[in-house]
């Protein structure tokens, strides 16, 4: 069975799948990174992704335009981000629990709306791969890296872009300051609430996109629980990547590689119970968290509500 996995075409297939599957992890985790850098821990990513996946799918199904689906997913993400920001910033709620509430709300609502509007498995015209001229002709590497749909390239480009925003702009400095010492940032005239609202909404819009990728850029259909815990894994990736886009890229690729491997194990029908294959990313998440935990820096004000007017 091992030789099946080791043939060149299989390896290329696994790697290409892995690069494609990096997209939802990257989009959701880079977005969550902004929220957490500003001090808000949004555990509801999974729920936002489900809503993004459904919203994107449904709009694309009704209008025939995957691009309108993308807009819808972003809009839904923004609204859910606004809700999370209101509860965790304005109402200063315990963020772990409110995130779980947002997850339950989004997950349930997506399932509810799907039953209501469509109710059966049907496929849509998703985004087609765009082979990049010349680069995609390179043997092996071309297939692995340069023959994907635009969302894959977009997610990869977001890594340097978010890095520049976070570390090379004034706004990025404000975000980092608000996440470490909101009191000091406030004294210097930075609106902690505005920065946190913005970051949570950005993160949620990206989570909506990550969900839309699953329906518009990956499976071209919607199914119950299509996100399969990827939203929660994305939150873990932010820890694993130490709140840094490059670290998150590394972690995202590791996870999507395992994800791709388990898909191919199922495709090839290898003699491993499929439940164990499906389990691997979750086991890996726990191992990864255990590996990096204990000696990591984290934004000092993460999870701590800020009240400008004191108690």
């Amino acid at each position, binding site marked *: 069975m091992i030789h099946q996995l080791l043939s060149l075409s299989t390896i290329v297939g696994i790697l290409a799948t892995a690069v494609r599957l990096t997209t939802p992890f990257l989009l959701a985790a880079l977005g969550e990174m902004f929220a957490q850098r500003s001090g808000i821990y949004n555990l509801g990513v999974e729920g936002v992704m489900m809503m993004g996946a459904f919203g994107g799918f449904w709009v694309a199904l009704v209008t025939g335009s995957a691009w309108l689906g993308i807009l819808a997913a972003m809009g839904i993400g923004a609204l859910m981000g606004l809700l999370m920001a209101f509860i965790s910033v304005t109402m200063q709620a315990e963020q772990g629990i409110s995130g779980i509430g947002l997850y339950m709300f989004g997950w349930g609502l997506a399932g509810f709306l799907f039953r209501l509007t469509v109710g059966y498995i049907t496929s849509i015209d998703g985004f087609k791969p765009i082979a990049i001229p010349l680069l995609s002709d390179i043997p092996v590497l071309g297939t692995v890296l340069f023959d994907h749909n635009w969302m894959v390239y977009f997610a990869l480009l977001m890594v340097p872009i978010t890095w520049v925003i976070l570390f090379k702009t004034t706004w990025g400095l404000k975000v980092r300051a608000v996440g470490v010492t909101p009191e000091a940032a406030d004294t210097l005239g930075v609106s902690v609430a505005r920065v946190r609202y913005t970051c949570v909404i950005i993160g949620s819009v990206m989570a909506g996109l990550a969900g839309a990728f699953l329906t518009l850029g990956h499976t071209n259909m919607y199914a119950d629980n299509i996100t399969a815990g990827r939203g929660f894994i994305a939150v873990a990736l932010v820890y694993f990547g130490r709140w840094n886009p490059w670290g998150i890229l590394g972690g995202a690729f590791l996870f999507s590689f395992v994800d791709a491997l388990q898909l191919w194990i199922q495709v090839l029908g290898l003699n491993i119970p499929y439940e164990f294959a499906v389990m691997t990313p979750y086991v890996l998440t726990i191992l990864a968290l255990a590996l990096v*935990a204990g000696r990591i820096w984290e934004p000092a004000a993460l999870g701590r509500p800020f009240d400008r007017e004191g108690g």
Partner: protein
Amino acid sequence: MGKQSPGMKLLVLTGAVVGALLIGALLLLMAGANPLVAYKAMLLGPFSSRYGITETLVKTTPLILVALGIVIAFRSGTLNIGAEGQMMIGALAGSAFALAFPSLPGIILLPATLLVSFAAGALWGGIPGWLKAYLNVNEILSTIMLNAIAAQFVTYMLRGPLIDPKEVSYGTGFPQTAQIAKAAWLPRLLPRTRLHWGIILALVLAGLVYIFLWRTSLGYKMRTVGAQKEASRYGGVRVERMMVLAMLLSGGFAGLAGMVEVLGIHHRLMDGISGGYGFSGIVVALFGQLHPLGVIPAAILFGALMLGADMMQRAVSVPAAIVFTIQGLVVLFVVGSDIFIRRPGFAARIFKRFKTPPRPVPDEGGAQ
């Protein structure tokens, strides 16, 4: 927990449920159902018949058990989101044990099966507890991952090693175990209903957890870890041990809840036995103000809501996922309005802000 009077707490909690139900009404309208008809079925159904009352208590039973575990964990400063997985693992181990020793007399088999399920749930909860205490691994994430792992593992066991031999010989292959020996069943409390002794067990355990947390020194230590971790360390409490113990107990209660469902109702293990109780238990624990006795009325309320939602679905036929959605809204409303309980002046402050223009930024002498 808060500084407000019980009356104010009740008001805020009622407001939270009403708020969630109002948004739920919008969803019902979208589904083309009449919210008044739906909510009438939901609110009156559970209390208007023998069937309604007993079925409410049937749903209350696992909710109390799960919520008790969550109260212990939350009070000790650990957010256990893994009850769903702990239930499944507890039910799996207990069922495997009961199936392995079918000829034991019931008086031994029943308590032993429950103990095995408690131990297995405790193990599944203890892993994230240990990881948090000694490696600082975020327990919310690890418990969610363990939920997913447990679901896959149980499915594997039900399709493979533990499948009912009859399912194999008939060729149906439905993933469930064989029926557990009758001696191990939890007896029914009332004839011709599904209400079983599990509810008595749950009520007794709620009292015991209250005594444990508030009347024993071990329980006191665990609560100080939850309230003031570093201070309790200075006070000589072994913080890490308390955190692990809290998660062991928390998982144990969830495991027990799973087994009680099996022994009281289904009499065999099948997929989906946790039925979302793991998440609903969180809602119940929060709603019961993280108090073991507060959990009881909260569990009855949510048991009624869950049953009522089933009845509502049949009355106006809307998708089942609406229940999970409304529960999510309840969580959001409860944690979102908690500040009114924590900070008596908060409501007045917001109100004032709407009436007067925003406070100008105080000029404190410019740059230093």
